[in-house]
C-alpha cells in the first residue's frame, strides 16, 4: 500500500506540451478520480503514473520511491484498461494468473490468488472460456480480476466503464466501490463522467487543458467550485451562469432583474465589478413549489419555455435576460409552455465568479 506523488509533472509530445507541470498528492488507500473533458490530459497523467508514457519533466513517486525512469513492471501497479485489454488467446483463468505466472510464483499460490479473485468478482463459471466468448460486463470483471490477483500497491483505472451500457455501468460502479472496500488500496481512476467521479471518489481531481482546476472531495467541488469550469462540469444539470455587475449591495444581472448581494460575498467585491452569478437549478424554484428557504432569497418572474417532468420533480427551462436558465419544481403540476411564473432564488446557495478570471470570489 502506498501513496502516489506527482511534482511538477510535464508531458510534451515534440514541441507540444499537453500536461503543464501538475502537482498532486494521493494518500495511501485513497480513491482518487481524475475527471475532465476529453483531451484534458487525464489519461496521459494516468499512463505516466503507470510508466506507459515517459515523463518530460518533474518527478513521480510511488510509496517512497521515485519511479521516473522505471518500466511499468518495477512499479508494483496494476491497471484496468478502457478496452479491457484481455489476452485473446488465453482463457479467463490464464488471463487472471498471467502476471503471477510471469513472476514465477508457485502454482499453488497462483491457483489460490486466481480463485480468490474469481470469487470476489463471481467469475467462477467462466474460468475456462476465452475472452471472445464473454459479454462486455464479464470481460470488464476479468480485467478487474487480473488487476486484483497481483495485490499491487496502486490500482489504475483508465475509463473502465465507458464501453458498457448504462445499466451495467451503474452496477459495475457499485462493484468497484465494494472492491475498494474489500481490497483496501490506493486507486487512481480516470473518467470523463462526472457522475462516476462523484459517486466513487474520496477526492476528485478536475482537469482541463493539462492543468488541474480543482482538487477536493465530491461535496467540496460540488458546493464550492473554484471556477466557472468546475461549476458547469460537476453536477447535473450544469450550474446556471449569468453575467452581471455589482451595484450598491446588489448584483444587477445584465438586462435582467437585480438581486441582493448574497451575504457570503459581502466585502469580497467592489462596486462596479463585473461578475458572474451562478446558481443550480435546485436553488431556483417557482413559488408554491419550492423548498422553504431559510436564509435570504430573491424573487423574480420568468417565462417557462419547456418543462421536463421527472416524476418527483419537474425540470423547467426558462429564459432570463436572454439566457436559458434551468429551474426545478417540487410537487409538480402541469406547466404550459410559455407560462409566466414567480420564482424564488436561494441566495445562500449562490456563487459569484469574477467575470475576467472566471475564479470564485468566495
Amino acid at each position, binding site marked *: 500500500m502506498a501513496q502516489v506523488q506527482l511534482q511538477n509533472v510535464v508531458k510534451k509530445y515534440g514541441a507540444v506540451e499537453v500536461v503543464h507541470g501538475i502537482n498532486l498528492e494521493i494518500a495511501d488507500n485513497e480513491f482518487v478520480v481524475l475527471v475532465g473533458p476529453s483531451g484534458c490530459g487525464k489519461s496521459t497523467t494516468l499512463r505516466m503514473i*503507470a*510508466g*506507459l508514457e515517459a515523463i518530460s519533466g518533474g518527478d513521480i513517486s510511488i510509496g517512497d520511491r521515485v519511479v521516473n525512469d522505471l*518500466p*511499468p*513492471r518495477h512499479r508494483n*501497479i*496494476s*491497471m484496468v*484498461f*478502457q*478496452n*479491457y*485489454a*484481455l*489476452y*485473446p*488467446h488465453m482463457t479467463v483463468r490464464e488471463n487472471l494468473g*498471467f*502476471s503471477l505466472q*510471469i*513472476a514465477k510464483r508457485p502454482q499453488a499460490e497462483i491457483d489460490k490468488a486466481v480463485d480468490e479473485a474469481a470469487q470476489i468478482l463471481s467469475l467462477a463459471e467462466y474460468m475456462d472460456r*476465452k475472452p*471472445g466468448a464473454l459479454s462486455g460486463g464479464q470481460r470488464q470483471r476479468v480485467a478487474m480480476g*487480473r488487476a486484483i490477483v*497481483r495485490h499491487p500497491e496502486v490500482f*489504475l483505472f483508465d475509463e473502465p466503464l465507458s464501453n458498457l451500457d448504462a445499466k451495467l455501468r451503474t452496477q459495475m460502479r457499485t462493484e468497484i466501490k465494494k472492491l475498494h472496500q474489500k481490497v483496501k488500496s490506493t486507486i487512481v481512476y480516470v473518467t470523463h463522467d462526472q457522475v462516476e467521479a462523484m459517486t466513487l471518489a474520496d477526492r476528485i481531481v478536475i482537469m482541463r487543458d493539462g492543468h488541474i482546476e480543482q482538487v477536493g472531495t465530491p461535496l467540496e467541488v460540488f458546493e464550492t467550485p473554484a471556477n466557472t469550469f468546475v461549476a458547469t462540469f460537476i453536477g447535473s444539470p450544469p450550474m446556471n451562469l449569468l453575467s452581471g455587475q455589482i451595484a450598491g449591495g446588489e448584483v444587477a444581472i445584465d438586462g435582467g432583474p437585480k438581486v441582493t448581494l448574497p451575504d457570503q460575498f459581502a466585502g469580497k467585491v467592489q462596486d462596479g465589478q463585473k461578475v458572474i452569478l451562478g446558481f443550480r437549478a435546485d436553488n431556483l424554484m417557482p413559488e408554491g413549489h419550492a423548498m422553504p428557504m431559510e436564509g435570504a432569497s430573491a424573487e423574480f418572474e420568468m417565462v417557462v419555455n419547456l418543462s421536463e417532468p421527472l416524476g418527483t420533480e419537474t425540470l423547467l427551462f426558462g429564459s432570463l435576460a436572454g439566457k436559458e436558465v434551468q429551474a426545478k419544481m417540487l410537487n409538480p403540476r402541469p406547466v404550459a409552455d410559455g407560462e409566466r411564473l414567480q420564482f424564488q432564488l436561494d441566495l445562500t446557495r449562490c456563487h459569484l465568479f469574477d467575470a475576467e478570471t472566471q475564479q470564485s470570489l468566495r
Partner: protein
Amino acid sequence: MSRFRPPAWFVLLLPAIIILAAVVLIPLILSFYSSFTPYKLTRPETLYKWIGTFNYEKAMKSVHFWSAFGRTVLLLTVALNLEMLLGLGLALLVNKVTYGQRALRTIMMFPMMFSPVLVGFQFKFIFNDNVGLVNNALQSLGLTDRAIPWLVDGQLAFFSIVVAEMWSSTAVFAILILAGLFAVPRDPIEAAKVDGCTPWQSFRHITLPYVMPFIYIALAIRSLDVARAYDIVQIMTNGGPARRTELLWTLIGRTGYVDAKMGYANAMGYISIFLAIIFTVYFFRKLNAARSELGMAG
C-alpha cells in the same frame, strides 16, 4: 425460356478455370501420361510406348534423385526457417522506428523487385572466388590470404545459395510480419507491461501469438513459389560442380532439356509437385489453427 442459365458465380469463375485448365491442367495431364512413357524429345514416337511405372521406379532407385530430393528439402527447411527468423527480427527493428519508417519500409522491399535470375547473377559475382566482392573484402581486410572457393566447394556453395535465397526472400517475411505487428492492438501489450512482463516476455506471450498467423501466411506464400529458388541455383551453380548443389528442380531441368528424357523428367517433376503441395497445405493448416487460436477464423 427453357434455356439453361448457369449461375452467376460459375460465369464469373469460368475465365479463371478455362485459363488454368489450358495452361496448367492439360499440360499436367499430358506430363502425367508421359511420365509412364520413355518419351524423348528427339524421338517423338516414344510418346506412344507405355512402360508403366518404370520412370518412377528408376527415380526411386537413383542415388542422384534421392540426394537432390534430400538437398531440396534441406534447402527449403533451412532457408524458410532462417528467412522467417531474420524477417521477424527485421520487422521488429523497423517496427520500433518512429521517424522515417516509410523510407525504411521501401528499402526493405528492395530485394523483392529483383528478378531471381538477377539475384543469381549478382551473387554469382559476389561469391566469385577470383574477383568477387566477398573474397576481395576478406582479402583486403586481411582476414584470409587465399581465395575461398565459395561456389566450387559443395558445402560452401550450398551456403552461398542459401545466402542468395535469403537475401532475395527475407523481405517477403519482413513485410508480412510488419503488417502483423501493425495489427497487434496496443492495449494487451501495455497490460502485459503492467502485469510485470519484461520486453522479451511480452513479445513471447502476447506479440508472437498475434503475429503467428502472419508468419504462416508468409510461409504459405513463400512455399507457393519456393521454386523461384530454381532460377537462383540454375544461374549460380546449375547444380554443379559435379552435382554437389543439385536440387530436384535443376535435376529435372537438365534431364528434360539437356538429356531430352522428357518422360523421366516428368516423373520426377510430379514428385516435386507433391513436395510443394505438401509444404503449402501444411502451412495453410497451421495458419487456420493460429487464426482460430486468436478467434479470427471465419
